[in-house]
């Protein structure tokens, strides 16, 4: 893991002005993306993971603002870069794949045009652009590209549409691709194919990928490193192996427990309660009210980040030397045990 860091997020804070007050969507997160790796950001909806991706792309809605922190990319702070700078970075250097391929494609524009639009605008001639679009469509695995280049989004299936969205994201040959829940809206079988495709493209084009999802199961086969977000903070961060085999934060435990397990008939353990209101984030550990292992101090004071290894960090009082030793739930431990036996099967 000695690759260079190409994207560096430090203490990023993003808030929204809303009717009830200011929503603190992202409350000081830091992580690195290294060349050629995939970092997954995992969390429930509302945890701030999509906001993070939008902040990186500089497409936060007008009522949102970056309150603090930096997003350093190639010597530029994306969090505070002017629009014209962002403009040269979006698409060309960093591509974004959206969650819902149905609504993220313009319904009345031919897909070929949607792929090449940026290219032609930036001076590529039509023929070249068309050839490039065809190539991209082939790359993302769309059969009969010659014919389909002139079709409209509604003539494609969901999986095919997502491939188009990926093709669009790749059109400018970016070096970073952010995938914001790229498979959530798709059938399970299609999901797998898209994930394969992303992996293949990543390898082919030596992309660095930020993969955003709420589904740890999806992450298993994708990510090199995983950030678990809760209530605008990264609560645990580590390599995929560390997160899956030695989870330290109770929230990660809960997430892992809520994954469907095909091997056993264990009941899916839903996480009790609801994420906190981010207009008035709770004092102490935001997860404490839903945390069966919460200590008194969790309600009083924010936990510091404890370093578990070179790559593994977690923010929970449970790791405090003075805290009583608490083990992860029994069922989860059994599951991890099985996973280890299966050889880290994802």
């Amino acid at each position, binding site marked *: 893991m000695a690759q260079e860091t190409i994207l560096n997020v430090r203490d990023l804070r993003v808030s929204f002005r809303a009717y009830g007050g200011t929503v603190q969507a992202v409350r000081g997160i830091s992580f690195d993306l290294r060349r050629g790796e995939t970092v997954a950001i995992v969390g429930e909806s509302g945890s701030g993971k999509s906001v993070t991706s939008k902040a990186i*792309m500089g*497409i936060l*809605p007008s009522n949102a603002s970056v309150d603090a922190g930096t997003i350093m990319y190639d010597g530029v702070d994306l969090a505070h870069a002017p*629009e014209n700078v962002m*403009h*040269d970075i*979006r*698409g*060309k250097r960093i*591509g*974004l794949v*959206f969650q*819902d391929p149905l*609504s*993220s*494609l*313009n*319904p*009345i*524009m031919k897909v070929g045009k949607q792929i090449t*639009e*940026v290219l032609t*605008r*930036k001076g590529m001639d039509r023929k070249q652009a068309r050839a490039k679009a065809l190539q991209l469509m082939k790359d993302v695995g769309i059969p009969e590209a010659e014919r389909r280049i002139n079709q*409209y989004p*509604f*003539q494609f299936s969901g999986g095919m549409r997502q491939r188009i*969205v990926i093709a*669009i*994201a790749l*059109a*400018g040959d970016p070096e970073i691709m952010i995938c914001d829940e790229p498979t959530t809206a798709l059938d399970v079988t299609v999901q797998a194919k898209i994930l394969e495709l992303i992996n293949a493209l990543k390898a082919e084009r030596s992309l660095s990928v930020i993969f955003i999802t709420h589904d740890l199961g999806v992450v298993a086969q994708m990510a090199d490193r995983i950030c678990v977000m809760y209530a605008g903070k990264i609560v645990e961060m580590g390599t995929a192996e560390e997160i899956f085999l030695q989870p330290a934060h109770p929230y990660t435990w809960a997430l892992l427990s809520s994954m469907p397990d095909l091997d056993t008939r264990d009941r899916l353990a839903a996480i009790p309660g609801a994420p906190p209101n981010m207009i008035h984030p709770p004092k102490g550990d935001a997860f404490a009210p839903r945390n069966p292992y919460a200590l008194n101090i969790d309600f009083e004071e924010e936990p510091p980040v404890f370093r578990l290894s070179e790559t593994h960090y977690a923010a929970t009082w449970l790791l405090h030397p003075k805290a009583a030793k608490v083990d992860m739930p029994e069922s989860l431990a059994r599951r991890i045990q099985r996973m280890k036996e299966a050889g880290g099967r994802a």
Partner: protein
Amino acid sequence: MLKYILGRIGAMLLTIFLVMTLSFWIIRLMPMTIFENPEVSPEVQYKLEERMHLHEPKIVQYYYFLEGIILKGDFGTSVKLRPGMDVFDIIMVRIQPTMVLNFFSLLVSIPLGILAGTVAALRRNTWLDHVISFAIVIFISVPSFVFASLLQYCLTFLWPVFPTLYNAQAPNVWQAFRSMILPITALSLGPIATIARYLRGELIETLSSEYMLLARTKGLTQNEATWSHAFRNSMVPIANTIIPMITGIMGGSLVIEKLFSVPGEGGLLVDSIMAGDHFLTVALLIFYSLISLITILVVDISYGIIDPRIRIGGGK
């Protein structure tokens, strides 16, 4: 697509027939006498009525009516407003001012409405948006003839910039057009507001759509994305407002033509109803529904052009 158009034309012909039948019966069942001037002796009245088959049963009159129109293209003869003149000729003579008035109103309202709507949407919640939205409410809720009178009073009387009335014998095109500016303006305000209102709503919605975000993430500027993605998508529902707008303009021109003495079809329709000129009224009703139906057809077809989902997906 061709099949679709042919189907629409077929339906249109059927509608025209129904309109013909309906207007015939509604107009003829209304109790009125064609000649009611006390100075014309009853004998002469009877003779004239006989000539128009008015003493035959209504159903026979209906037969003559259809026979005239379908077989001979004969809509009958005016009896009151232009006695002896062929109804079709009367309509043809007056088509030009009406068309100029309605056409220019459309021509003015669509771009201005789009402009106002776009500005309001892009500058949402600024003073500019508030001013435009306020104007929209006023223009939509106040009928066109009120504006017409107001404009006429202010711009021809208090501050005479424009001629009070339509100038049918202007020495040049500019003079003729100058006399049409006020009626066109009066007719356009409502439609401008209608379009602006719809477009503002649509555009605000599309501006926050996912594909707008995508368009920006792929490197388009906000303006480029607005123009090539948000704008065209917003036009799809706008196409639908064009139909009621055109009928609205035509309805408004009924009164506006009278106010500005524009010698068009609108004033004629009102007069013919007032005077009880049956043949003329019926022919004008057919004329107006034909225009409406043609616009609906054109809008339907252009809808297909704007929105591929209708053209290809519909399959009809």
